[in-house]
């Protein structure tokens, strides 16, 4: 089946078997390997992408379901000049160690901050409940998200 969708602002299409997941479409057909294949059953969250404003496990969504919709992956956050505030803060605070959970963590955090720019610690933890990290212990990830939220809402207020 032909799947046509918008990925990070660009219209893309691919001819894939109907059982193809959105994750496989992104990684193997569109060469966007930022979203990772982890558990492949919707537990670990490293495949998280945003579809029409909502975070989803791309390993659980069939590609056909994303047809005609807008998908944001980790590749859509930074420009060649500038990192996204979340990426800056993750780097600055050492919120990544092995990094495998990073794309999913940052995308889940973006989905949260887009709706709720100044979340509480509880809200951040709740938003990350579907993203597993086996290295950091989460503390630095939570701090980075809270900091990025503050930067983003200050920037918003100025503009």
């Amino acid at each position, binding site marked *: 089946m032909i799947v046509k969708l918008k990925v990070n602002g660009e219209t893309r299409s691919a001819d894939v078997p109907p059982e193809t997941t959105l994750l496989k479409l992104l990684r193997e057909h569109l060469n966007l390997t930022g979203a990772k294949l982890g558990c492949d059953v*919707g537990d670990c969250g490293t495949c998280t992408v945003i579809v029409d404003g909502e975070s989803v*496990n791309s390993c659980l969504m*069939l590609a056909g379901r994303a047809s005609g919709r807008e998908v944001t992956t980790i590749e859509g956050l930074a420009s060649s000049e500038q990192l996204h505030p979340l990426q800056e803060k993750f780097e600055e605070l050492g919120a990544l160690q092995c990094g495998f959970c990073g794309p999913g963590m940052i995308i889940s955090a973006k989905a949260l901050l887009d709706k709720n720019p100044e979340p509480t610690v509880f809200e951040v933890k*709740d938003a990350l409940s579907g993203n597993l990290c086996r290295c950091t212990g989460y503390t630095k990830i939570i701090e980075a998200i809270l900091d990025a939220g503050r930067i983003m809402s200050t920037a918003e207020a100025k503009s």
Partner: protein
Amino acid sequence: MALLAENNSRARALAGGTDLVVDLKHAPGDVDLLVDISQLPEFSGIEETEEGLRIGSMVTFSELMASPIVNQMTPEIVAASHTVGAVQTRNLGTIGGNLVTCVPSADSAPSLLALDAIATIAGSDGKRSVPLEEFFVGPRKTILEPHELLAEILIPKKNLGKPSHFIKFGLRKGQALALVNVAAALYLNDDGKVAEPRIALGAVAPTPMFARKAEASLDGKRPNEESLLEAARVAVSEIKPIDDFRASANYRRHLVQTLTYRTLKRSAEIASEQ
């Protein structure tokens, strides 16, 4: 529906996909045909009708949590939805899918049962409605025929706002199956006695279930320490928990007693505040 009926066991209806896509990966040869029903307008939406609160089977858990009308009229359904999976799975997973998958631990079941929810089933030969309790037949088995789909859930009007409380006990806050989940609902009549008590239990029998004897033991009594503890003890006698790697049957019995007591107590507190 015709497609699903024709292809019988080789065809499946696709809702949110959070269970079915995983099944497809584990047994790729089992299914030849997927029919995506997630966008059917007849199965979508949440609205108040003359009969009560109608929840389309394709409503996602995130939609339930965000719905002002659900928050206002049946807050425990919001609380129960919040305990399902994690954000990403709640954005995909539907209430209908959760019920049709029919695992004993389904987190949406107890709070719906406690409000006497009714399941409306659509088939190629028309519609039928059954109490949700009768919808569940066994683990991963419902009363749906191959040509039928779960269309909507109705919370009867008389139970909107009924004092109710839900507790899920899992080993983590996110991404955990319930060891036990319990919902209670009750009214207090003018002289402070319990009326129409409901106790719904999950993960302690082949399907989500009512503790009918426990309900009867509390009916018409004042909700004090003695009567609530007695109901909780009776509830334990009605369950058939199993030992598995998540918990022993004995631990589940202990949880049922504690959580039944707590959900009843909280329901009674809410009732007396009203």
